[in-house]
C-alpha cells in the first residue's frame, strides 16, 4: 500500500508538469498559467520565429551528426572491450570510455572548451567555436552511452556464432558485417536514438563549447525563459516531447521485434 502511494506520487511529479505543459501550449491566453480557451496560435507564432527555427535546425543537425559519429566510435570501443580479450590497460580503457557517464557535465564542458582553445593555439584547429566543436563534444559523451549499450549486447551474444562464420571461411571484417553487425543492429538503433536525444537536449556542454552563430535549441529556450516564460516555449517543448517520445517508441519497437524474432 505504501509503495503504491509512493509510486503514484512519483509518477505524479514526473508527468503532471509535462501534462500541464502540453495542456498550456494550447492556451489562447498570453499568461502562461491562466487558461484562456483552446488555440494553436503559439504553434503558428513558433514557426514564424526565425531564431527558434534556426536553432532547431542547428540542434537537429548536431544531434544527427554526433549520434552517427558516437555510434561508429562507440561500437568500435565496445568491440575492443568485449572481443579483443584481455590486453594491457583494458580496465583503464573501459574506465576511460565510460567516464563521461558519471562526469559532471560542467566539468566535461569546461575541459572540452579548454582543449579546443589550446588546440587552436597549437595547430590552428578548430578555428573558433561553433557547430563543429559542439558536434565533437556531443560525440564524445554520446560515445560513452553507445559503448555501454553495445557492450552489453555483445556480451550476451554467443561468440561461437562468429567463430562458425570464420570457420566457414569468412575473414574478420567479413564476420563483422555478415554476422556481428546484423545481430547487434537493434542495439545500434536504440543507441543512436539515445545519443540523438541526449545531444538534442544538452544545454550545459553546448553552452561551454558553442560559439557565436551556433546556438542550439536548448540554449535559445534557456535564454528566452530567463526573460520570462512565454507560451510559444510551451508549444516548442510539446513538439520536442513528441519527437523524443516517437524516438523512444521506435527504439522499443525495434527491441520488441528483435526479441520476438529470436524468442
Amino acid at each position, binding site marked *: 500500500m505504501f509503495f503504491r502511494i509512493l509510486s503514484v506520487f512519483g509518477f505524479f511529479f514526473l508527468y503532471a508538469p509535462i501534462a500541464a505543459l502540453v495542456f498550456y501550449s494550447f492556451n489562447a491566453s498570453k499568461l502562461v498559467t491562466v487558461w484562456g480557451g483552446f488555440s494553436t496560435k503559439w504553434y503558428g507564432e513558433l514557426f514564424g520565429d526565425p531564431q527558434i527555427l534556426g536553432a532547431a535546425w542547428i540542434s537537429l543537425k548536431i544531434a544527427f551528426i554526433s549520434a552517427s559519429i558516437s555510434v561508429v566510435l562507440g561500437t568500435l570501443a565496445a568491440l575492443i572491450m568485449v572481443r579483443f580479450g584481455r590486453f594491457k590497460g583494458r580496465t583503464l580503457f573501459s574506465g576511460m570510455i565510460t567516464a563521461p557517464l558519471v562526469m559532471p557535465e560542467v566539468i566535461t564542458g569546461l575541459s572540452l572548451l579548454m582543449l579546443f582553445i589550446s588546440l587552436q593555439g597549437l595547430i590552428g584547429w578548430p578555428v573558433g567555436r561553433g557547430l563543429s566543436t559542439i558536434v565533437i563534444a556531443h560525440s564524445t559523451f554520446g560515445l560513452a552511452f553507445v559503448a555501454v549499450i553495445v557492450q552489453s549486447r555483445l556480451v550476451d551474444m554467443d561468440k*561461437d556464432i562468429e*567463430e562458425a*562464420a570464420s*570457420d*566457414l571461411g569468412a575473414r*574478420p571484417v567479413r564476420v563483422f558485417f555478415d554476422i556481428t553487425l546484423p545481430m547487434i543492429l537493434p542495439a545500434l538503433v536504440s543507441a543512436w536514438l539515445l545519443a540523438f536525444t541526449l545531444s538534442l537536449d544538452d544545454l550545459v556542454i553546448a553552452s561551454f563549447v558553442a560559439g557565436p552563430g551556433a546556438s542550439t535549441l536548448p540554449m535559445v529556450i534557456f535564454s528566452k525563459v530567463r526573460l520570462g516564460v512565454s507560451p510559444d516555449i510551451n508549444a516548442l517543448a510539446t513538439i520536442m516531447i513528441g519527437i523524443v517520445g516517437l524516438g523512444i517508441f521506435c527504439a522499443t519497437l525495434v527491441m520488441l521485434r528483435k526479441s520476438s*524474432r*529470436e524468442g
Partner: protein
Amino acid sequence: MTHPNPTDEKPWLDIDRKPFIKIRNLTKKFGDVVAVDNISLDIYENELFSLLGGSGCGKSTLLRMLAGFEIPTSGTIEIDGQNMLAVPPHARPTNMMFQSYALFPHMNVAKNVGYGLRRDGLQKAEIDIQVSEILELVQLGGYEKRKPSQLSGGQRQRVALARALIKKPKLLLLDEPLGALDKKLREETQFELINIQETLGVTFIVVTHDQEEAMTLSTRIGVMDIGTIAQIGEPQEVYEFPRTRYVADFIGSVNLFEGRVIKDSPNKLVIESPDAGINIHVPHGVSCSPNQLLWFALRPEKFEISVAKPKNVTNLLKGTVEDIAYLGGQSVYLVRLETGRLVRTVRANRDRGAEAPITWQQDVYLTWARSAGVVLTS
C-alpha cells in the same frame, strides 16, 4: 577380388605412414584449469576418429584448438604437413560443427547452410543445388526458408551438420553431431557420415558421449580422462582390452574384482580376490611385483549363467538372482554373490520365454572362459 593391404585400412599400424594430423605435447590452460594436458596424437587420412570421455574432460577444447579458436598454451598441431600455429580459423582446411550448433539466427536455413560456399565465391545457382542436395541428405528438404528459431532441437542439429559438411573440407570436426536425434534418424545419419567419409575421403574427428555410436562409426577411438588420453585403439581393442579401470568402465559396463597376486608365471596368474570370494585363474602372467593389488575386469556378457552346478571349471561363482531386466534381445541379471558383491550379467534371449528357468531369488552359478577377462593394474 583382391584383399586390401591391412596397413591401407589401418594406417596407424604402419610406422612409415605420415599422419594427416600430428598433435604433439598439446596443452591448454584456462587460468588454473588444465583443459588439455600434454596430448600427443596421430590421426591418419580417411580416419573416422572418435573422442570419448566424461563431461568437461577437454574434448571440445581439443577440437577448438584444431579449428583455430583456442590458442594452445604449448605444443604443436600439424595438419597435412603444415604447422597450424599461425593459421587463422578462416584459412584452415577444417570445418567444425559446434556443440551449441552456433546457427546464424538472422539467416534462414538455406542461407546458413550455403554460407561457406558463398564465402568461397561460388555462383548462386551452384550454391542452390548443393544446398538442396545436402538438405535432402539430412532430411530437411522444404525447410530452406525457415529461421533457426522456428526449428526443433534435432532439426537445428541437422542444419549445423549440413553447414559443416557442405564444404567437404579435408578435416571435419564434429562436436556431438547426433546427440539430439532419435534412434532411427541417428542411425541413418551415422550411415550417411560413413558414406561421406568413404566417398569423399574426408577425415573426421567426432566427439560423442554415446559409446555405441563410437563403436559403430569409428576406425579408432580415443578415450579421454580429464585432459589426457587414457587409451587409443580400434573399437574392439578398446572394448576387449581396456588398459585402465577408467577405460573399462567408460566403454560398456564391466564387473571389477579387486584382488592380490598370489601366483604369477608366464602362463598362469592367480588372483586372490576377497571381492569375488574365490581365487581367479588367468591363463597368462602379467609380470608384476608379488602381492600387487590389481583388478580383474569381466564384461557382463562373458558370464555363463546356469542353475545346475557346472563341472570341471576353475572359476566358479555362486550367488542369488536379485534383479532381472528384460531388454528384448537380451536380459540383464543382477546376481548377489555370497561375498555381498553385486555382479551384472547379460544373457541373450534365445528362446521365446519358453525355457526361462531363471527367476528372482534363485540360486545360480556363474562361470567364464579363463581368457574372457582382462587384468588391470591401474
